[in-house]
């Protein structure tokens, strides 16, 4: 194994173990040794997160491991983020199919486990996620999306009686003339593709893995729309 691979494997293992201190140290060391930050991101952090995601999907890992990995990723990203930003500033194409997501469980609903899993998986896939928590008024969600210039707003509701607030969010975006600026993903146990379509959202997904794929697709769509000038 080459020295480069050893550094990347160290980063990956720290993520799989969900050890934030180890992840921070491994990233710092890799950067100091001159490893390309994009390699650390793609072949260390994301590779590790991918392993954790797969183990979670097949029931070998459980929620605590996913949460610990989320923490480790956050710690690692704090180390490499400044270097990544400089690289992206020179060449935005290197960002890949990622972007900024504002997520929240909508007003009146306090269920967040599904939303947290999606947030962790999006982070693990290179998205910058602003998780506003639970019971969040739609105005606050939109205000945050405007503030951080988000690509996607992701909102979640488990309760059927909280789902109408997702429609309110889409309607308010329309009323504010901001609908075209953000893609809107909706999720939750009772949310169906028919519901998403009915309220005018851009999509929903049945699980966290598919939610990441949807977010990537929405980023591609958004980019294509911008290029086409629509």
């Amino acid at each position: 194994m080459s020295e480069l691979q050893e550094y990347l494997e160290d980063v990956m293992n720290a993520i799989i173990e969900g050890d934030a201190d180890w992840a921070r140290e491994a990233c710092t060391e890799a950067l100091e040794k001159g490893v390309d930050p994009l390699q650390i991101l793609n072949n260390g952090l994301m590779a590790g997160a991918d392993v954790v995601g797969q183990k979670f999907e097949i029931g070998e890992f459980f929620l605590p491991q996913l949460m610990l990995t989320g923490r480790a990723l956050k710690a690692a990203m704090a180390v490499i983020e400044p270097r990544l930003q400089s690289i992206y500033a020179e060449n935005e194409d290197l960002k890949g199919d990622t972007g900024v997501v504002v997520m929240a469980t909508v007003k009146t609903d306090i269920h967040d486990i599904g939303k947290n899993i999606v947030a962790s998986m999006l982070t693990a896939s290179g998205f910058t996620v602003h998780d506003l928590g639970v019971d969040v008024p739609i105005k606050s969600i939109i205000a945050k999306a405007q503030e951080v210039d988000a690509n996607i707003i992701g909102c979640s509701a488990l309760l059927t009686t909280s789902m109408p607030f997702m429609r309110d969010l889409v309607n308010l975006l329309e009323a504010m003339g901001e609908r075209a600026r953000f893609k809107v993903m909706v999720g939750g146990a009772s949310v169906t593709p028919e519901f998403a379509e009915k309220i005018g959202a851009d999509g929903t997904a049945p699980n966290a893995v598919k939610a990441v794929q949807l977010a990537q697709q929405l980023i591609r769509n958004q980019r294509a729309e911008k290029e086409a000038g629509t």
Partner: protein
Amino acid sequence: MILNYLDITDRANNGPYISEENWDLEKIAMTTMELVSKYKLEWNPEEIVTDDPGLADTIFEAGLELARRVGAYSRSTERIIEFEPGELEEGIRRMPQTLIMGEGKDARTLYARKIMDERLPLVWAGNPGAPHPEELFLPSVMSWAQEPIVDMITCGTLVEVDGREVRTEDPIEIVSTRRELQYMRQALKRVGRPGMGMLAAQSSVSELGDLAVAHPDYLRTCDSHLVPMLNELKMDHRNIARAVNSLEYGMRNASLPCVIVGGLGGDAPGSAVVNVASFLVSNLTCISDYHLCHPIHMRHVATSTRSVLWVESIVEQAFARNAPCIIVSDIYPKSGAMTRELLYETAANAIVITVSGGHLEGCGSADGNLPNGTGLEARFMGEVGHAVARQGLDLQEANGMVLKLLEKYEHVFDQSGGNPGVRFDEAYDLVSLRPLPAWQQMYEEVKAEVRELGLVTLE
């Protein structure tokens, strides 16, 4: 010492601060992981109904240790509700051993069941939480209230009233929950069982509806309502208000911790530990008269998955051996009306619950996510439970039967979109309130199959 419930609210307002993330990860997940390792807790997916008294006792001990070490969490104030030594034990001593539900000739007595208890489990029919359009609500409830085997009833959730969408925290929750209770009482009168006990006030997520129906015209003191705990070991002001409201009014409190198997407790053994701790804590935070056992699967939701069945069984056995109390167990199958799998799932769940020491509640068909439940599967749930008790099925026999049933339905967990079946009105004749012939025939065929599996007393 906790002298009255205001001591709990004091602690929720003044206990030590901790962020919710740290509560989840450091208090619940880490402590549970440590206890699973310390007590060497494992499960075997081929042994759903465990015949291992030592394991049940150890799960109980680990759950008690978790409750003692972490306490509960107030999500509203971000503070820990701590318990002093002896308080949880006092909560155990206070747990009712019998509870009369309903009134008059329709009253039934819930009791703390034993493992392999030959007394019949009580049958609590309905699909709490399942969203219903208003026009389907009354006939759905009547479809199970009319079943002679049913002892008490519950119901789904009204998602609209008079064509208006019900929204959480909106004043319409008051209307929807009162409307729900009007339909429930009407259903009982129309089937000639006006005194039957109910678990209701399902049409309001906030405390508004619960407060609005604490009145003899709606929810009587011989009925019950939910006092939920949030995942995991959490309360909030909404749910504390539900408990406070019943202090003077006196209706029964059903604690409802829906422990997520595969969630913060990790795999099945850790989730069982969290479930035990939740019941123990809820004695104090929810002032429980009885407990609703409703673990849910992290991905599949249903209570008929192997790991959830295992948790239901071991938790009931743990309490039956160490702290007898009234446990009513929910049956939430993956499948919906007019599918054979719904009946297989119901049978497996009913066998596990009855033999392990619980009473039966259900069915929340189609994951309780759709109005796809009927009185027929509630009847089947009761028939299977009664047969298990009558036959004196032992734990090992029950396990063998459940494994055979799993072979018949486990494929539904791999089906994208689940196995929702059809709506109530596509499975029942709404005029006669009888199952459509195809649904009736499916029920009779599956019943014969279950009888052949060894449940010979299934009538």
